């Protein structure tokens, strides 16, 4: 009883418990995969780990009990990962820029936005993954068809946020800037743009994630490089372990990107009140 009191889940020992959940999950998975038929569909955690080792590390492992065939140290994923990340960043940059420009323009030109309103709604409602074949036709199987697909995903997120942000600029702040003598240009630079940026940042997590999704889905639908391509190849040979390894790698990098965005956000958005901060000061 006393022992349980000490180890039961509480604020101080969340990490061990979180790791415990992972270990139990992996253990059950590993046990289940001892059945050869199940292993065909579910893969095997140890093999998945071995796959990731070969992808990332240049050192080979001699045959042993876990890996009867040994592990080849290929270190060959970097080319694919680089392509996928390049697509993600390009799509994120281009999509954000386009969304910012169009959002600002439409929010400040009510007539244009009234005219275009139904088309924007339609474009947003359309399942945009369906555009992938068209982009493949237009831009070929290189990176640009994937960038284009991811841009369509990122663009609308940023666009709607900027549009909203500009519309919700406090009328008092606006009137104050005008009284202080701001010209139209200065209003755009000192009021609308910072206000819109705040909204862009609040959508950054979503849009980076979607840029990644767009890149990978684009690769999956037809490509010669990228993590999506690796998964597609593995699926073609019923190599379920490699598919799972690809999923693990993608998840890890999605988390990494999200953390990166979080850091940038904290640095740039320090003017925003965070919960609890006003108490501390």
């Amino acid at each position, binding site marked *: 009883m006393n022992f349980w009191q000490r180890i039961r889940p509480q604020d101080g020992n969340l990490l061990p418990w979180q790791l415990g959940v992972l270990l139990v999950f992996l253990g059950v998975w590993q046990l289940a995969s001892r059945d050869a038929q199940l292993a065909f569909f579910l893969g095997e955690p140890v093999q998945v780990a071995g796959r990731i080792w070969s992808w990332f590390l240049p050192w080979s492992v001699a045959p042993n009990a876990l890996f009867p065939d040994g592990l080849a140290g290929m270190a060959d994923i970097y080319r694919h990962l680089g392509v996928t990340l390049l697509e993600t960043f390009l799509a994120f940059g281009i999509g954000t820029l386009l969304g910012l420009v169009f959002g600002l323009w439409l929010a400040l030109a009510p007539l244009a936005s009234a005219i275009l309103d139904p088309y924007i709604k339609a474009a947003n409602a359309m399942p945009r993954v369906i555009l992938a074949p068209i982009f493949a036709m237009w831009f070929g199987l290189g990176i640009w068809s994937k960038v284009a697909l991811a841009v369509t995903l990122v663009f609308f997120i940023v666009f709607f946020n900027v549009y909203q942000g500009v519309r919700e600029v*406090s009328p*008092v*702040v606006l*009137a*104050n*800037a*005008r*009284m*202080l*003598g*701001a*010209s139209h240009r*200065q209003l755009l630079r*000192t*009021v609308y743009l*910072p*206000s819109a940026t*705040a909204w862009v940042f609040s959508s950054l997590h979503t849009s980076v994630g979607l840029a990644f999704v767009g890149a990978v889905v684009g690769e999956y639908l037809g490509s010669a490089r990228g993590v999506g391509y690796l998964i597609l190849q593995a699926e073609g040979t019923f190599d379920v372990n490699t598919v799972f390894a690809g999923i693990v790698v993608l998840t890890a990098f999605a988390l990494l990107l999200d953390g990166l965005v979080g850091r940038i956000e904290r640095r740039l958005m*320090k*003017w*925003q*009140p965070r919960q609890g*901060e*006003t108490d501390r*000061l």
Partner: protein
Amino acid sequence: MADFALELLNLTCTFRSRQPGLPAYTAVADTSLCIRAGEFVSVVGPTGCGKSTLLNIGAGLLAPTAGEVRVFGERLSGINRRAGYMFQSDALMPWRSALDNVMLGLQYRGLPDSQARAQAQAWLERVGLGDFGDRFPHQLSGGMRKRTALAQTLALDPDIILMDEPFSALDIQTRQLMEDEVLALWAAKRKAVLFITHDLDEAIAMSDRVVVLSAGPATHPIGEFTIDLPRPRHVAEVRSEPRFVELHSQIWSVLREEVLKGYQQQLSKAA
């Protein structure tokens, strides 16, 4: 004529209703109000009587339906460039630090950043916030934000200062402190001030002249009182002087009925 800093002449302001079918609303009807250079004028009136409308017209943020505004004898069109405006609610940019907010107007004027920064810092020090320039608005208290806004407005050295219930959100002690500070700053520079408030005490304590507005709609001035209390004044002390009490009861007798009328209107509107 040119000794008037701001003249609001026969102003009428009618708002068209957005919903068709509802009647148009006349906020201000045939109102004239003139402020001499260096004069401190307060406008009091019941809630929702169109005081802010009057101020926005004087600032050039709102065009009157009829009548005209003259600034130092010249007809106003567009923003009133010789006026500074202190708003009732927070008007600071939340993404700029206090110092950056104060230097905003100077930057708009095209002053080099280093000069603008130095002047802004001097103004922050004058309102007692010299050490708080790097704080963002959300890190400042309500009173400090008001001081920053005051510095922001005064940094441009406007000839006319428009204030829309600037201290209504502050607690009573902070408020009296700020009222005294504004009076001291005003006494040093003697700018024309148009001060809107619903607090009669505040109006009498600070002004040379108090104008009472009728309840809306179609607000118009119904009384004007010259406040002959000696200066310099301290808002907390001046309240106990016999002359203050006398003026207060005089003005209140005019204002009271309008306040009741305004209250009745609000009740019937809510019903």
